[in-house]
């Protein structure tokens, strides 16, 4: 199958999933106990205001009609309007999305920089001390609450050790972002690195035992060259897949980390909107987060198909 055909087939698979995602996000409002409009507006709200919201959200109509209305707005890019900011929820999300993407991108990069050398060290020193130490990382690391890691990093690098990094914010310009986003991104990286190390070590061990590595070795290539040019190159394929599969975990982690470091991304927007009971914004952020995850799944599959053509024929 050609790569184009493969992408089209994968896209077709996504349609029912994205549809399901919208249904779940739509139903969030119906999970609110009692009358959602009254709960959201609070006890002080006048009946007229409640009735207005009912009409605006179509809560007075049957469910299928409500969903149709919801989808009708959605396909026109209308994610509803914020009850607090008095503007479109979509606009709010779009304004803050670059910050979150920075955090995810930088965090992913740092996680690869942490995980690849450690996994390579463990795989080449199998069953020796370095291997045992590296294998302990996932065991301990997965139990760290992401936001708590952030607080500890803040304590160590933000408040002590010469106040190397700012304790929050997004910074100005590229270097400013780099400086301000280092600690939050490192926190994101610590969250995902244990998973990455575990998978990458396993796949490197497999690769190091494969025939083509034996061939490379028997040609008399130095071990370093075998590792970097032959083993790691194949290990990258599995790194990409592991990152892709765990992107939901990674992206979800940023939500709370943004809160710890006061990073003005969509995670912080979601948490703030929760406290303002700004339902449309919470719905919009939830939807955007999940669409992001679905797109990353797609990109991972495509990247995988590019790197390893066998995938396309499965």
């Amino acid at each position, binding site marked *: 199958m050609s790569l184009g055909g493969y992408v089209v087939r994968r896209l077709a698979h996504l349609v*029912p*999933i*994205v549809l*399901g*995602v919208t*249904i*779940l996000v739509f139903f*969030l*409002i119906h*999970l*609110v*106990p009692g009358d959602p409009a009254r709960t959201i507006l609070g006890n002080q709200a006048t009946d007229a205001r409640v009735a207005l919201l009912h009409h605006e959200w179509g809560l007075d109509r049957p469910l299928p009609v409500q969903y149709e209305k919801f989808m009708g707005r959605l396909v026109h890019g209308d994610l509803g309007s914020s009850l607090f900011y008095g503007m479109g929820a979509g606009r709010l999300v779009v304004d803050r999305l670059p910050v979150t993407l920075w955090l995810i991108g930088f965090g992913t990069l740092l996680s690869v920089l942490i995980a690849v050398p450690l996994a390579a060290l463990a795989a080449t020193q199998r069953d020796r001390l370095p291997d045992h130490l590296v294998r302990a990382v996932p*065991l*301990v690391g*997965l*139990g*760290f*609450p*992401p*936001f*708590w890691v952030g*607080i*500890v990093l*803040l*304590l160590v690098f933000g*408040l002590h050790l010469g106040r190397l990094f700012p304790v929050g914010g997004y910074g100005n310009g590229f270097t400013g972002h780099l400086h301000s986003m280092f600690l939050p991104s490192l926190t994101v990286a610590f969250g995902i690195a244990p998973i990455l190390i575990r998978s990458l070590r396993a796949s490197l061990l497999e690769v190091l035992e494969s025939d083509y590595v034996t061939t490379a070795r028997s040609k008399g290539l130095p071990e370093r060259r075998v590792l970097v040019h032959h083993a790691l190159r194949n290990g990258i394929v599995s790194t990409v897949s592991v990152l892709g599969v765990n*992107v*939901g*975990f*990674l*992206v*979800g*982690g940023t*939500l*709370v980390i943004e*809160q710890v470091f006061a990073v003005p991304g969509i995670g912080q927007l*979601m*948490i703030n909107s*929760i*406290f303002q009971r700004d339902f449309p914004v*919470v*719905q919009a*952020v*939830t939807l955007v*987060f*999940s669409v992001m*995850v*679905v797109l990353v*799944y797609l990109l991972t599959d495509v990247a995988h198909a590019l790197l390893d053509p066998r995938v396309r024929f499965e």
Partner: protein
Amino acid sequence: MSIAAEVVTEAVIAEHRHGFRRRWYRTPSFVGGVSILGTMVLLAVLAPLVTRHDPTSQDLLHTLQGPTSSHWLGTDDLGRDVWSRLVYGARTDLRVAFLAVLFPFVIGTLVGLVSGFYGGWIDTVTNWLVNIVVAFPFYVLIIALVFALGSGTRNIYIAITIVGWVSYARIVRGEVIVAKRREYVLAARSAGLSDARILFRHLLPNVITQAIVFAMSDIVLDILAIVTLGYLGLGVQPPTADWGKMIADGQTFLTTHWELSTLPGIAVVITALGLSLLADGLADLLRPE
């Protein structure tokens, strides 16, 4: 024939049991996990005996104090005993996490069993539902659900169940698809046993191992979710002691009293380590030889 099939199944299970009895104490991760988790559970259960102060009683004359003979780990900003709050926090968070894992475990296992066994439209629908839930980042969906449902323990259970069942369903479904082609299932089928009997008496004991091992890691994830919700103020409601709320409360005093935020975090890490070791040990012990 049916007896023959059951004998085969039971032999497989007995083999597991035999292996379990033989080697558990020689598996360091299992022993380590049981010891750590056992200590935590024991402390939580015996909370009234190992603490000298009520975890919620305030003493505004003795706030933010360092360790003393009366307050082993000092007091927080409301003069509450930090050690008591840590131990009672274990009681809250461990109980919620262990209970929270039960519902997804049972529901996911049943769904996986049925969809893997029957295939067809049941399987298609299950896969669709699984893919939808998986499309949401874990924390985002949990937080959105708890926000909609309202904070509190009951709604944490509901949210974790809605998100958590998919992993069990996927694991069990995968195992069932492989297992249903094995001889003992074919033998049971040809002997005319009912589907229910094949599913629960023959398949379930053989496919449940993976789900149990995963449940240990899943409790870690649930504890992290509960603590995160507590940190955001959406979890267990005050004044009940909860590690997440303790970390959040302590964050205000990070510059002067760093221990207030770090100690509950360390408690989470130790608990999670115990569970991860236990999961590793169980996987090792229950692996078919």
